[in-house]
């Protein structure tokens, strides 16, 4: 019963928040609602019994990724409304709607999958985190390690990319401003 209520509540809220993310002109609003949506999604995970995943969602998404976004926004002018040329929106919404419709129809249809057998069944006796840990460090060890390397690479890449001319402030250093202005003029 609680589960049902929680599901509908979370569903309504995430849809609403993500709509704000997508539609909002203000980056700050968009980001805030995105972060809130992420939290609610972790709620879904908890309902579904994927405790560990929910925690990771909270830490990584809400903690790390959102923090990254907010730091990134400091580089850009986040207070200004974004001016975009959001043309041909009819097509966009039609496509979005169509894809939603098709997907919903597909998922709403009865799924014939009685013969799907669990490769790595869950164990009720032990906790989800332990379960995940066992599978992750046995069957998915190599992908896990690869993912770790990938994250390291991504981190270095991010530092290198963003770190160029880090000594020059984009907002305060006049020479940097000039640089930007000249490139803009050049266009």
């Amino acid at each position: 019963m609680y589960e049902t209520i929680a599901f509908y509540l979370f569903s309504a809220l995430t849809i609403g928040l993500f709509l704000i993310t997508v539609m909002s002109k203000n980056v700050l609003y968009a980001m805030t609602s995105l972060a809130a949506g992420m939290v609610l999604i972790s709620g879904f995970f908890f309902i579904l019994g994927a405790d560990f995943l929910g925690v990771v969602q909270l830490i990584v998404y809400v903690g790390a990724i959102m923090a990254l976004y907010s730091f990134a926004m400091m580089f850009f002018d986040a207070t200004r409304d974004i001016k975009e040329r959001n043309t041909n929106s009819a097509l966009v919404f039609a496509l979005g709607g169509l894809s939603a419709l098709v997907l919903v129809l597909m998922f709403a249809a009865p799924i014939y999958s009685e013969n799907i057998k669990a490769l790595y069944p869950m164990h009720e006796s032990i906790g989800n985190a332990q379960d995940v840990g066992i599978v992750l460090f046995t069957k998915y060890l190599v992908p896990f390690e690869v993912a770790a390397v990938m994250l390291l690479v991504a981190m270095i890449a991010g530092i290198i990319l963003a770190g160029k001319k880090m000594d020059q402030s984009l907002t305060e250093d006049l020479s940097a401003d000039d640089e930007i202005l000249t490139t803009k003029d050049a266009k």
Partner: protein
Amino acid sequence: MIGLEHYLIVSAILFSIGLVGVLRRRNLLMLFFATEVMLNAVNIAFAAISHYYNDLTGQMFAFFIIAIAASEVAVGLGILIVLYKKYGSLDLDDLASMKG
């Protein structure tokens, strides 16, 4: 009772919202947000399937997706900063240098 379909439908709706965002927005940062929405929508589907089939594989995939999302954001934001330094804008319409 909430079934698998419910979760999948929510996932589909969220995915479509993300898609609309991807298609509609011209600001690269907003595109990133929309991408996050899509990734999360898929994660819900994975977690739900994992739950209803009593199989951890789904969670594993969701887990890796989160890892990929994290690295994507790290690299992506780095690129955005470089772009912004170079062009002073994150609007896709200003970045059309690959015209064929």
